């Protein structure tokens, strides 16, 4: 596979974490415009730990995930009682605040005689752990997809379990779920923390792939895109969001046929697709239908 194909596949893998993160909140009944902020938290935290404090990547990833989960938990605590657009706008506000805080965040340390670390809007250069440890692009892509497979396995496991049913129940009808004794808020906060961790994991992997991050990478566009991927791909299964990402980044970006007109084609395609399937390609109904056919 040439460099370009690896690059596209790596991008698909990285954004899929964000799409899964938005999907997890969507099935819990909450629409978030802010997952890019936790993606950013992961990127910054992971990058700092490896390039400023010499932590190994796996450890830094775990720490970043914990931080992402904590951050989304704290944002969710006062806002998860809000519904629909109110919650979306609260997450938008929180994410834009995070982006501006990244712009104001200057914290560097001398490593081998050179300042390393976030330098506000100049960004954060030199996250070179992957290169320093001689990891080939193909191998790094392997790691990303291994992590993604782990996340997917967790999703598919949860979806079959009682927890998965509770989650969807809370998403579809919180009052009904509450009347059945479900602590709706605790479930939503749990889902939010997990979504934060997922986004942060994507962030860590992105930072080390790109070796450079800057606040503008984590703007509203990324957040609304990940929400769109989850919805286009379908809310019926965790594979839905991945389908959304593959459709955009894979098919159109990779194919380069619509060279330069890609967004016009993709935008029109998405709008028409949503008219035909308002809950995405792999929505709940088609997933049930597939399960009946193949089980």
């Amino acid at each position, binding site marked *: 596979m040439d460099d370009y194909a690896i690059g596209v596949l790596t991008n698909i893998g990285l954004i899929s974490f964000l799409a899964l993160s938005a999907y997890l909140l969507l099935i819990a009944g909450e629409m978030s415009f802010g997952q890019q902020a936790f993606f950013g938290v992961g990127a910054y935290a992971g990058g700092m730990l490896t390039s400023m404090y010499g932590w190994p990547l796996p450890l830094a990833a775990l720490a970043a995930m914990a931080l992402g989960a904590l951050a989304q938990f704290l944002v969710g605590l006062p806002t998860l009682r809000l519904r*629909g657009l109110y919650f979306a706008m609260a997450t938008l506000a929180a994410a834009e605040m995070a982006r501006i805080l990244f712009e104001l965040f200057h914290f560097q340390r001398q490593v081998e005689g050179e300042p390393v670390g976030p330098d506000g809007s100049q960004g954060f250069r030199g996250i070179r752990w992957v290169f320093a440890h001689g990891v080939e692009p193909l191998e790094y892509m392997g790691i990303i997809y291994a992590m993604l497979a782990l996340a997917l396995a967790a999703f598919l496991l949860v979806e079959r379990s009682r927890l998965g049913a509770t989650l969807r129940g809370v998403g579809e009808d919180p009052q009904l779920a509450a009347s059945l004794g479900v602590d709706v808020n605790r479930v939503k906060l749990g889902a939010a923390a997990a979504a934060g961790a997922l986004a942060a994991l994507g962030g860590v992997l992105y930072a080390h792939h790109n070796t450079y991050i800057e606040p503008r990478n984590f703007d509203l566009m990324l957040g609304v895109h990940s929400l769109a991927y989850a919805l286009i791909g379908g809310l019926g299964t965790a594979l839905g969001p991945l389908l959304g990402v593959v459709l955009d980044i894979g098919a159109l970006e990779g194919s380069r046929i619509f060279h330069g007109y890609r967004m016009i084609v*993709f*935008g029109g395609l998405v709008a028409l697709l949503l008219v035909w399937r*308002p809950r995405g390609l792999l929505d709940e109904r088609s997933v049930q239908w597939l399960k009946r056919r193949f089980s």
Partner: protein
Amino acid sequence: MTDLAQNTLDGLFLGSSYALLALGFTLIFGVLRRVNLSFGPAIMFGCYAATWVNLNFGVGLMALALITVAGAVLAGAYVERLCFAPHRNGSPIAAMVASFALWMQFEELATIALPRHIYDFPPLHGGTPLEFGGLMLRVESLVMLLAAIVMCAVLWGILYRTRFGVALRAVIDQPQAAQLAGIDVPRVFVLTFALASAIGGLAGFLIAASHEQVTPMLGMWSTLKGLLAMMLGGLGSLPGAVLGGLALGLLEAHSQWFLGPQYRDLLAYLLLFVLLAARVPWMTTRSAS
């Protein structure tokens, strides 16, 4: 002391542009119970259309204003047909994501039509700003404030003095009862969408004239400011939209003076977050599931 007055003045001018944007957003949200993420990009389309015509044929200010408004209404109609009409009794999220998809289209269309990052846009009055009592006053800002006031009066007149206004308020209040009262609700949707797009187009023209430039970021900027002002003023309430816009303008003007642009935006978002988290009454009266 004059700084305070100057900032308040600038805040009012800035706030009036936000108020116009919020009015457009609120009209669409009030009637359709949907968020149109392509509201800002449709305005940008109008501004880019005017810039393109100006670059190739050189037209006067009035013509530019008309082209901007017409472009915004045209783009708005395209968005309404593709994203909102099909999802009328469907899911609000689908309609919103569809409108986001068209935002991508408008943005790429703009960068293709006019590839350079920034294009000039003629100001209303090229000369030095007016001055009285030690306060600087740009013509664009004055016209912006006047436009906001006139638009509020026009909207109030439409809403409370015309048959269409009765229909519009009825649809906002109880869509099914409006149908039963014999109101052609789909037609009200289309006309309201056009009205909101026209208001957006006017705001876009004045914003571009006061910034004296257009960039592809105009779509994102006007969407964010419009949404922010609408939420601050109370989702779905037209007077709220105006108050929200003015409040946001004043907050930004003053915080920019004391804290600089980054803290200004940070403060605006922090205010929205805190108000939402505290679930203040005027903001959460209308349920927006």
